[in-house]
């Protein structure tokens, strides 16, 4: 395969001690920010009556998507999008499975339609009037690398910008022994094909094959403060921090490389350099 050259036009973020990309960027550059008390964002772009019914994973995803699109200065209605969550909405899974284990199995119709994995993509396209292709994918622990690869290939094929949003909310109590996430995290990036506009950094990506099978997939070490380290370890979507750290770096550097595991015998290698 040939390498895919791309740019990052805008970023959005929401997590345990940051509510936007400038705050996350500061943390990634060593600043200490305390945890905030807010349980979840309230994205203004969702109309108030819909926002009340929107579950936490949806609000995380839509808030960070909205930030990224504004940062990129693009019209969300014109952007195709790829949404990914590693564990899905386990609070709604918990609600449905609990009700369905009783004699009266009547479900709330709103909770049922909110339980689809593409709820975030649905609320986003409805709120922004976006009629473009919206994808919603899952890759469990490899969610970030698979969604990144999928979005990069679509961006390359269509030669236009695209929104990617990574989001995971804390696991429900019953499932948290298996799906160990206990923090809310969302990040979004708007990508564009190389040459789309003038940017400070230039990225390229390639899928690498490996001779040996990996018994367990290893993500890059990330040197960040404790709270973010824990988020990176437990929240499947927070694995995007490895790329965001490269992006946030304030030191002028010639290049940086990260390798994200995709499958037992493949990985996604992303290289960043100063734009020529």
């Amino acid at each position, binding site marked *: 395969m040939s390498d895919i050259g791309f740019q990052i036009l805008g970023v959005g973020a929401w997590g345990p001690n940051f509510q936007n990309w400038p705050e996350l960027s500061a943390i990634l550059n060593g600043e200490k920010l305390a945890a905030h008390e807010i349980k979840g964002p309230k994205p203004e772009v969702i109309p108030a009556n819909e926002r009340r019914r929107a579950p936490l994973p949806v609000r995380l995803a839509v808030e960070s998507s909205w930030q990224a699109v504004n940062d990129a200065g693009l019209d969300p209605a014109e952007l195709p999008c790829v949404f990914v969550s590693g564990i899905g909405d386990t609070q709604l899974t918990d609600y449905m499975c609990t009700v369905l284990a009783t004699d009266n199995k009547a479900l709330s119709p709103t909770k049922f339609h909110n339980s689809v994995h593409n709820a975030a993509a649905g609320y986003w396209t409805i709120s922004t009037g976006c009629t473009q292709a919206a994808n919603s994918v899952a890759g469990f622990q490899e969610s970030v690398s698979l969604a990144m690869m999928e979005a990069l290939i679509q961006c390359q094929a269509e030669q236009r910008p695209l929104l990617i949003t990574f989001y995971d909310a804390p696991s429900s109590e019953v499932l948290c022994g298996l*799906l160990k996430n206990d923090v809310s995290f969302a990040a979004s990036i708007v990508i564009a094909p190389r040459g789309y506009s003038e940017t400070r950094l230039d990225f390229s990506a390639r899928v690498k094959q490996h001779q040996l099978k990996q018994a367990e997939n290893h993500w890059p070490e990330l040197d960040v403060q404790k709270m973010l380290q824990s988020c990176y370890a437990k929240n499947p979507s927070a694995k995007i921090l490895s790329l965001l750290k490269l992006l946030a770096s304030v030191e002028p550097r010639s290049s940086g490389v990260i390798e994200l595991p995709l499958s037992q015998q493949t990985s996604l290698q992303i290289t960043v350099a100063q734009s020529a």
Partner: protein
Amino acid sequence: MDIRLIDYQSTTAAGINIDALAKSIDSQQSGLRKNDLFGCDIDTWIGRVAAVDEIDLGEWQSRNNALAALGLKQGSITENLARLKDKYSPARVGIVIGSSTASIDRSEEGYRNLDENGHLAPRFQQPLVHNPHSPSLFVAHHSGITGPAMTINTACSSSAKVFATGARWLAQGIVDAVLVGGVDTLCLSVMYGFNSLQLISDTACRPFDQSRNGINLGEAAGYAILMRAEDAILDTGVVLRGYGESSDAHHMSHPHPEGLGARLAIQQALNMAKLSAQDIDYINLHGTASQANDLIEGKLIGSMFPKSTQVSSTKAWVGHTLGAAGITESLIAVDALRRNRVPGSLNLTTLDEQLDLSIQSDNLAKPLNYVMSNSFGFGGNNCCLVFAKAGDKL
């Protein structure tokens, strides 16, 4: 880009494999039955694949994974995957599976069997099963494919979109072959969920009929192996000619009243295929038999396509198989293309009086060159696919 289907298989209530399904279609024999799903007392009909009940996968067990495994056993899919892994390498083969339920059937069962402390019992401690990526994780494990494996979960368009993604992966060259698929199983979540939306029929479903009163749910597994034409190790004579993906931007569970997103997806698929509406010989409609879908989709198709385009919904054979519907119905259309036989719209007696379409309950022998399949899902997520016979002129 010339993307070929080199092999395909389907497992539904109307046939354990694609040949059995073709026989059911030819003889107009539906696979639907009165609801007998364990633990579910809703008065309706379902498309249940009984052979799934016999399968136990141990640590990978879920009804969904069991159906995925049963589907992989059909025809020559497993044999051809072995050839491809051998010819290239297991890392140069990809997996893209669409699903809406994933293994939530297993989570439901786990919750029915919580221990006294409210924890999952040991046999349900399956992190690789209780998550939305479970179908692809299992298929990768089961098939020995070690290339990228991704799950698409866009409700009822999930396993139509796998063709678009698979084609893009091949065009970019990250893999030499892709196993695309769709697996969804009957479970209480979808039965009681659709019941809460008052969308379920108490009779066998009647897509596009004046007297239709709702959907029947079904379960299915479907697979196709896609390759670039120049590499294709087998020739079924079928090409993926175009795809269209769009959003309604309207409502989470109700289609856009004028079918805005559906129109965009259909137009996009025609554009990519370099075809016009009159070139399409047959459309396998989404046709769920809900009041809203059939009226909106029927009006849209009537306004976009001439009467020379035959249309039908095949959901009265297999039920609405949700996340597996896209590939199940695409493969019915592909099989129709190869056999030059248009499936009828089973259970149709009187067409909705607001519609004007070339649709009937009987099957039809007709030379086919281009076929289309529509899939529309919750969240307003739409996908349309166009398949052609190889060697047609562009």
